[in-house]
């Protein structure tokens, strides 16, 4: 009971902070986020505001800038940010490279890089995937050959989200072709724009560049930029995946999103009708809400288990599948609700600060969101691969 009360007090504090500190531009970017990657500039501005407050990295150890919040508090924080439609923080800094350095970085790396990661002064892109290595990441070929105190990189990376905005990259590269493919991989940090490096943006289904190809020809990277030992990058990468145990907060996004969709359906249109009066649509909204709640409560249940020392194990795969698929179903229903009004393609009007267009944000957003959300079942370990992992783990008993 007292715990609940203090959680509610915490919720009020978060709400008040968002109300007072988010600029109009950041709010606009949050509303106009058409994928899981928010518009770059505003997402980083919001990151800086949170960093100044000390709230940017809830899952990090406190001594390095974490908040020291309980898992419940972290969930409440995510809920409130989503309810207010703040742009999601780009995951590369705080959820990917940060944990790698926290777990395996040298003291010098920690001291130099962690504060810049928190503030967003550095923005990191993730150089894992390659044209021939996606689901089978261990098949990566981008080579790093030793030359004195340097590695020389040759090869390419693909699907590197926001590489065009990044000043740093963390990459998995091949340092040995002996033994199992996982054994010859090294985790490297590098600056973008080094001689011999080229970044080419790729246009997505909505016509906007979000991912990039990155090419390396004889790019020189000091060995001091390695994280962990040579040939042990796979261990680092696995640690990163496990770092945010119980960090899944998809339900904290879905529940308020369904709520907003319901509000949209309650509005009276030009003919005096409410979409919600359509019994079929009303039932589908109810069903979607149940799915969103299933995600939220599964996440909370996994968190509760963690408190009692349980490992999420296969539940991590389950949460990935469940969360992304409900997210996709949400995007489908949102598209159907918006219907004919979502046909229009007007990417200019989605730019932050664009002059008001003939079309409303709801109308402009539903289609690109629906299309971009198809990626959720592809990235971060495709849902097919997650299903195999889940089945294997659970069947064995």
């Amino acid at each position, binding site marked *: 009971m007292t715990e609940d009360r203090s959680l509610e007090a915490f919720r009020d504090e978060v709400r008040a902070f968002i109300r007072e500190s988010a600029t109009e531009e950041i709010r606009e970017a949050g509303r106009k986020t058409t994928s899981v990657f928010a518009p770059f500039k505003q997402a980083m501005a919001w990151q800086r505001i949170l960093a100044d407050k000390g709230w940017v990295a809830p899952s990090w150890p406190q001594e390095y800038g974490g908040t020291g919040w309980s898992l419940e508090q972290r969930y409440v924080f995510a809920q409130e940010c989503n309810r207010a439609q703040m742009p999601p923080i780009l995951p590369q800094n705080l959820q990917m490279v940060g944990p790698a350095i926290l777990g395996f970085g040298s003291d010098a790396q920690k001291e130099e890089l962690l504060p810049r990661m928190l503030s967003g002064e550095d923005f990191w892109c993730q150089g894992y995937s390659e044209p021939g290595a996606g689901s089978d990441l261990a098949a990566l070929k981008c080579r790093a050959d030793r030359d004195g105190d340097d590695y020389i990189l040759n090869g390419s990376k693909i699907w590197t989200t926001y590489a065009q905005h990044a000043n740093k990259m963390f990459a998995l590269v091949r340092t040995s072709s002996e033994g199992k493919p996982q054994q010859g991989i090294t985790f490297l940090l590098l600056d973008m724009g080094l001689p011999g490096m080229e970044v080419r943006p790729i246009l997505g*289904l909505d016509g906007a560049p979000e991912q990039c190809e990155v090419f390396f020809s004889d790019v020189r990277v000091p060995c001091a930029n390695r994280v962990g030992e040579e040939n042990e990058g796979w261990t680092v990468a696995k640690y990163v995946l496990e770092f945010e145990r119980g960090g899944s907060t998809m339900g904290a996004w879905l529940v308020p999103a369904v709520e907003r969709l319901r509000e949209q359906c309650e509005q009276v249109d030009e003919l005096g009708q409410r979409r919600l009066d359509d019994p079929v649509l009303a039932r589908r909204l109810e069903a979607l809400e149940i799915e969103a709640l299933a995600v939220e409560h599964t996440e909370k249940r996994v968190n509760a288990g963690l408190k009692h020392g349980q490992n999420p194990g296969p539940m991590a795969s389950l949460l990935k599948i469940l969360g992304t698929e409900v997210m996709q179903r949400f995007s489908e229903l949102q598209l159907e609700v918006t219907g004919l009004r979502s*046909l*229009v*393609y007007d990417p200019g009007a989605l730019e932050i600060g664009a002059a008001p267009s003939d079309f409303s944000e709801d109308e402009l957003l539903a289609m690109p969101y629906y299309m971009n959300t*198809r990626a959720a079942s*592809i990235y971060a370990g495709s849902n097919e691969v997650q299903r195999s992992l889940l089945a294997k783990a659970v069947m064995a008993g």
Partner: protein
Amino acid sequence: MQYQYTAEQQEFRDSLRRFVSDHYDYERHRQRLAKGEHFDAGLWQQWAELGVLGLALDEEYGGLGSGLDDMMAVAEELGRGLVPEPVVPVVAAARLLASIASPAQAEALLPSLVGGELRLSLAWEESASRGNPLVVQTRVKDGALYGKKCAVLGAGEAQQWLVSARNEQGELLLLLLAAQPAGLRRYVMADGRAAGDIQFDGVPVDDSAVLCRGDAAERALRQSVSESLLLMAAESLGCIDSLLSVSGEYLVTRKQFGMPLAAFQALQHRFADMFIAGEKLRSLLWAAFQQQGREGFHRAAAQLKVQLAESGRYVGQQAVQLHGGIGMTDELNVGAYFKRLTLMELMAGQRDDHLAGLALAS
């Protein structure tokens, strides 16, 4: 019982396929859309020369006098080639016009439609119509037109609009109006085709604009919209067949974990389900075609639209998924088919709308 194209129709379709692949390859498609070119007057003229614009019109007006099945064959190839020109909407509108025009009007308009000089666009869909063309809020009051039509394909390229409206007595009217840019809000759709919303704020209409009224107008409009659903289904089959062939090829060539993706049973089954989804749509298309001229035609067309929504969505989404990251790019045609299928799912009534209509009627 006709369940497939005749040998002659197949031949015609094959020749169209060559024309489409020569003029509408995907790279060119991308470049055109990047430059905002949704309509190419030169290509339009070629469509006219191929006889496609007059395919389903009487020979006395320069047409070929063919049936809806010939147009279905055309629509398939338009879908396969992601053709952005509004061939199907113009032809469908011309067929409707031919069915209601007086001999003098037919004489005056149809030959130039066949020749490609006149483009006509049918504006029936409204925000509340949800696939039912008889739900019409657009009104003629004191000799002026009020209301709004949505998602009108080819509206911006047309010189004349065919518009459905009701008069003050509630009687349905089909009007032929000169296209008026003032009320037209043009836009590019997510799949790169052009469309428009048309707002009528008191556009004057006199009696000469009324081509048809009452029961006759209702019958003609419903017939036209149901025919359009068949053409849409054929067009989406063109998209689905392409996605199946592109995906099938990808599964056997793309390797992960040292073997082709085709070796993973989960993906084999997925591909089989995509194929099944396509075949269901094809069967219902022919089933609806057989109902032409019969009482069950509108019902069959609505059922077809439900299947279009389901098959199109499933195949489109799964084709993207099977391709992984590359499926999410503009570079590959997979996403383009997915988008075109998505739009067809949303236009002319969604799945739930048609299901509701069907349930109500039975």
